[in-house]
């Protein structure tokens, strides 16, 4: 059987786009874990709330795909910013209300707390928008929704579909990832976060406000989750209260796969899972006709088990001194 390159490239684009989204969410898991060693299971729902707020903002403005381009771009950016601030506020509040009080409690206490917040946020979302899937008001003009950039702009005779929304995912995600890397590596707060991650007591003795630094980690995680929520809303063209579960689970897995607590690991894990996801959902079927998306979870977690067995600290999890 010949290898279908066009199909492979289509899946690759879809895998990388999904991977970018997962990476953004995974960073939230890994930043928080790096500092307080807590798996914030509510993080998927923080992402979902970002999508819901973005939906609300876009719907409230009444701007749709038929309005002038500058208005569309403006609304898109406002919704993106709004979603980021909203998710950051939720993440910050959860830490302030619950996790901070449980810093010295047994580890299971904040973990259960996180699961509790996950359900609470999901129910709030159901109360807010109902249990049905919601489609956002169209912002991308209909001519461009299925516009194949490779064919239209470059005149290529190809079935590989690169759509404006795919490009938008990368255009928003990549700068955010670079910005975060710069922030952690080069700013004073970033350095404080790295120090706190290594040794909280020593950091406190050196004059670092540990609680404030931890809160900053939650805020950054929330900002990234909110951005991912807004992007996912328009990438999938749908939002629902349960959307945080699958993305959250994959993002958490990505963080573990790359090496929990390690920023580069989370990004690598995110893209890797996005890739495996797309290949399992689509490419494998070319060779095993009975294959389908229902096997994808098993494949992803199967690979996770194998990697954990041979590399318990994840793919690039050894650099613990660099963890945040």
């Amino acid at each position: 059987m010949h290898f279908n390159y066009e199909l492979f490239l289509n899946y690759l684009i879809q895998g990388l786009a999904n991977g970018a989204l997962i990476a953004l969410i995974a960073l939230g898991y890994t930043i928080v874990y790096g500092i307080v060693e807590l798996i914030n299971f509510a993080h998927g729902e923080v992402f979902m709330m970002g999508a819901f707020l973005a939906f609300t903002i876009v719907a409230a403005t009444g701007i749709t795909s038929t309005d002038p381009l500058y208005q569309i771009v403006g609304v898109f950016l406002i919704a993106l910013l709004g979603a980021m601030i909203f998710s950051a506020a939720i993440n910050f509040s959860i830490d302030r209300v619950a996790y901070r009080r449980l810093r010295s409690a047994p580890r299971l206490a904040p973990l259960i707390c996180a699961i509790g917040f996950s359900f609470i946020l999901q129910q709030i979302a159901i109360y807010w928008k109902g249990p049905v899937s919601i489609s956002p008001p169209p912002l991308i003009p209909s001519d461009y929704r299925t516009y194949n950039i490779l064919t239209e702009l470059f005149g290529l005779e190809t079935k590989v579909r690169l759509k404006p929304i795919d490009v938008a995912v990368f255009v928003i995600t990549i700068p955010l990832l670079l910005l975060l890397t710069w922030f952690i590596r080069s700013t004073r707060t970033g350095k404080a976060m790295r120090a706190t991650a290594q040794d909280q007591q020593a950091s406190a003795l050196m004059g670092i406000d540990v609680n404030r630094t931890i809160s900053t980690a939650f805020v950054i995680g929330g900002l990234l989750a909110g951005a991912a929520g807004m992007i996912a809303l328009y990438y999938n063209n749908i939002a629902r209260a349960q959307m945080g579960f699958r993305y959250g689970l994959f993002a958490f897995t990505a963080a573990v796969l790359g090496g929990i607590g390690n920023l580069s690991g989370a990004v690598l894990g995110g893209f890797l899972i996005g890739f495996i996801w797309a290949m399992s959902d689509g490419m494998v079927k070319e060779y095993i006709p009975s294959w389908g998306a229902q096997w994808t979870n098993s494949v992803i977690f199967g690979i996770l088990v194998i990697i954990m067995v041979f590399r318990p600290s994840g793919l690039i999890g050894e650099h613990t001194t660099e963890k945040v």
Partner: protein
Amino acid sequence: MAKDSIAGLVAQLYNAKINRREFGKRAAAAGLSAGLIGQALAVHATRAQDVELPPAATIGQEGFAASSDTSKGTIKIYSSWPLTGTMELTGGDAVVAAQMAFDDFGNASGGYELVYEALDEGVAANNGGWEAGKVTENANKAINDAEAMVYMGTYNSGSGKIAIPILNQAGMAMISFANTYPGLTVAVEGATEEGEPEVYYPTGVRNYMRVCPADQIQGGAGARWAYEAQERRMAYVLDDNSLYGKGVATVFRNTFEELGGEILGAESYEKSLDNYQTLMTSIADKGPDIVYLGATVENNAAKILQDMRGVMGEEVIFLGSDGLNNQTFVDGAADAANGAWITFGGYTPDKLLELGGAGGDYVTRVTEKLGHSPDAYSVYSYETAVAVIQAIGRAGTNDRTAILDELFGTENFNSLLGFTWSFNENGDTDNSVIGLSQVIDNQIAFQEAIS
């Protein structure tokens, strides 16, 4: 003896099985005095004609006399189908339609007050779809209620599979307005499981009926339309992995192949995904000229259509089963829904309005109540309730077996759709009309009957 005779004759008179002249002859033959006969006729005159029926409620049994008499007590009728989330519109409209039927008949029949209670078997966590625990709970609630005589439901065939045996063991009649999976009543080669339908009737006595045509008719009609009228030759078949979705998709697939068409692939999609771009890319690569989807709306079906339109042009037609013949599906898919074809076992409300008569009256009045055009299946919900009311009227007793027998024996039922139907020995309707609609300007518009 004479007392029994006159009671039986009066019951026949109430239910319009005999006319007043015949009643007089038979009563005289039974040795009753002219005075008693006169009294009985006078009572009949005041009781039998004291509910004025709107045109929609004149359907069903020819000449059925509605009565507001409630002297014998109370009979409860439960219904169970999903009422929340994505099923809020379809389920909610069906409840309003059923309640309208009871109201039209004065909430009385056979000398009993009729109390209708709608139960929800959907859960928010399941997108509003049914949940096995709730289905069981509702069925048990009904059988344990001594006043309950009939169970209306379910909407989904998968939940019907759970409810039927529970009600069967309690000898309670169950009548569905929307179950279409063939295996609930008959065995169809290639489309039903081994042991069906007997496995659902542990007592060996049939207690289940449905007023809508089953999927061996719908799936087949869809395949013939695609192959013959649309000249489609390469189909890709998807289903939502539900009992119903798989069933109707299998019938479509088998018929399409028998006609000479090629099935490029058939699979059950994973309903929990946030997008189906990968699946649709894979399908588009195979080059189908039609995509068939057997699914209900709560199983993320709108997203399937949305993502299909993202990668496939309008030359590839979309044909969906009746579980998608609702505005929730159309709204969910937004602009991508336009042009989609959807089958339905019967006529949709827009067609009934065009036909006028009882069906038109039903649509007009229920639209006023709802504030929107009713869901297509609400028509059958109304008919189901009327069939139940009239069966109770004919039985004239609060005995589950007697009411089951009367309901099962429903024949020549004048339908809102403008023809008559009867239940066969399996509890299936002999109505085999399959309508075909198309989504135009984000509204479902009836096009033609294809069976």
